[in-house]
């Protein structure tokens, strides 16, 4: 029985729940509540825990920003983890081992990542390969590239002279800068880079014509084509942007590890996809947003952090993560 007095407020709640953003927020709040309940002797209430969570999730979040654009075009980018590995190695190789100036290295690495994304995009847009297949191929190829340019070894600041003795290069300032914290040690630089990536993706999606094209292509590709949307170019932009962000993430990863690991980023594509989906962006394309991805990143980040500070065993951790992902996505789907 609904009284007339409570009816308007209830519809407001219903209307609110219909919004993906609020549902995503509700999932995040639920995870935060778990954190408050299982606070690991108060560790959850320290700012450093939150700062470290934000640092840890940033690389995944950066990948997820690019992934969001691709997924909204009804595509998928499985190559993000491998391209991260390749660009991390390239970044370490050029700056740690060859000692090039950051003014050359950063554009070169960003260019390499974008090239990988554009290659996937070309296969999808020009040659009509299914995104799953095209980016699967790029995933394997980029991992091969990472292993090839590194010779299968981690690229660090130490290298062996021909006589077998080890020499060390000073870790370049750029590495230390990206690995540092700002504002009195309260926020990691990589987190700020993540925020910049979120803003860039938001501008593309919400403020530029390309964003509307991306939505249209994902919603109904044929209708978009008929109404004059440059479908191929839009897809190229989405995959290229994803590749660019992979390179940004690769640079952050290498700086944080202070080395380029050819195995870096393995399975990161799955976390990036989980972040996008938990946020509420539809895998079928046409619907979603970058704000959702930001919330999704926080949800996954807090979940991992809470399990970690409580030193929960690996088996339980995996099962709980699976359950919570399903729960969050089901919650997203509840109608009215």
């Amino acid at each position: 029985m609904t009284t007339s007095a409570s009816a308007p407020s209830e519809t407001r709640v219903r209307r609110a729940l219909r919004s993906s953003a609020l549902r995503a927020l509700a999932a995040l709040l639920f995870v935060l509540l778990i954190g408050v309940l299982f606070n690991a002797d108060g560790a959850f209430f320290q700012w450093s825990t939150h700062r470290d969570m934000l640092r840890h999730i940033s690389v995944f979040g950066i990948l997820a920003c690019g992934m969001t654009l691709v997924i909204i075009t009804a595509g998928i980018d499985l190559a993000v983890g491998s391209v991260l590995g390749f660009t991390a190695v390239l970044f370490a190789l050029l700056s740690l081992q060859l000692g090039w100036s950051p003014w050359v290295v950063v554009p070169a690495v960003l260019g390499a990542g974008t090239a990988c994304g554009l290659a996937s995009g070309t296969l999808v847009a020009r040659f009509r390969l299914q995104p799953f297949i095209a980016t699967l191929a790029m995933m394997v190829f980029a991992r091969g590239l990472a292993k090839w340019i590194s010779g299968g070894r981690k690229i660090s600041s130490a290298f062996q002279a021909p006589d077998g003795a080890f020499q060390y290069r000073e870790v370049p300032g750029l590495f230390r800068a990206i690995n540092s914290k700002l504002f009195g040690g309260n926020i990691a630089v990589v987190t700020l880079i993540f925020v910049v990536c979120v803003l860039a993706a938001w501008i593309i999606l919400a403020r530029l014509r390309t964003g509307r094209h991306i939505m249209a292509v994902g919603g109904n590709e044929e209708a978009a084509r008929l109404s004059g949307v440059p479908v191929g170019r839009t897809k190229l932009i989405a995959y290229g942007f994803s590749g660019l962000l992979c390179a940004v993430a690769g640079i952050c990863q290498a700086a944080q590890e202070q080395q380029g690991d050819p195995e870096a980023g393995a399975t990161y594509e799955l976390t990036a996809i989980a972040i996008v989906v938990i946020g509420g962006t539809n895998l079928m394309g046409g619907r979603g947003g970058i704000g959702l991805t930001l919330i999704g990143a926080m949800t996954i980040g807090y979940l991992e952090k809470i399990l970690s500070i409580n030193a929960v065993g690996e088996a339980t951790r995996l099962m709980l993560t699976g359950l919570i992902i399903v729960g969050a996505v089901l919650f997203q789907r509840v109608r009215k």
Partner: protein
Amino acid sequence: MNTRFILIAVLSVGLAAGAACGSKPSPSGDAAGPSGAAPKFTIGMSQCNLGEPWRVQMNADIQAAAAAHPELKIVFKDAQNDSLRQRSQIEEFAAAGVDLIIVSPKEAAPLTEPVAAAFAKGIPVIVLDRRVLGDAFTCFIGADNRRIGKAAGAWIVRRLGGKGKVVELKGLMTSTPGQDRNAGFREGIRGGGLEIVFEADMKWLEPDARQEMESALARFPKIDLVYAHNDPGAHGAWLAAQAAGRDKDILFVGIDGLPHEGQIYVRQGLLAASFEYPTGGREAIETALKILARESVPKEITLASRVFTQDNIEAGGEWLKEP
């Protein structure tokens, strides 16, 4: 169709480039051996994967040891972590009639039969690092993770003077090396008065180790030492402590002691110690030479391992005493 033709052309160029890439780094490439003298013996080496730096090092050690013997030609194959692929590699070696096979198996059960078949054909087989079932092979060479873990535990007890708070960052606990490095360590510290305040599975991965260590740092204002099951794990923990400004208060101990990894971290003063998990590459070639010269070799060789600390790293580490 025009586009399809272009696609095929692009793909084949890509594949050709990929193939060219594959053969460049010598330890992971296909054929090796000095080009001058004609090699007398061909050795087939099947590596279970080259994703781990430790296995890249094993191939490099084999390569380096073989370089001094122009009569040897080594053919390297990488099974890319696929037991069935490794199985066919061993069958290929046997069919090609190589003089000796070295195999570092991915898993015991699926590789027992092909190894036994090659052995039955009269081809000597050296099994490296991981075992196969039964005894249808010539020689097994491997190190003992449990013993190394125990030595690390005993060393840590001595280093901390018998008491302290320790964080254990474990390798993948569903893998035997992870289990053995954990069990040996617990055995080594037994009765020593150390307290394990935090333990987590970092799955051998540096970023995971860093994240787990951040959690440990958030929870415990005092940590004396971190024992990680591999050097990348110890390095990840060090990065977390350094970011928190606590790296000078904590000692870091890792396992593996690769020249490009753990030994460097020890030289740089990041790790207090790294315990070597030897690859056995050199010993495999020494044993192979004996077998090819028709000398007798033991059925099983357990590799000795070293501990690297800042005091002994320049002298090449210190051999662990037999327990």
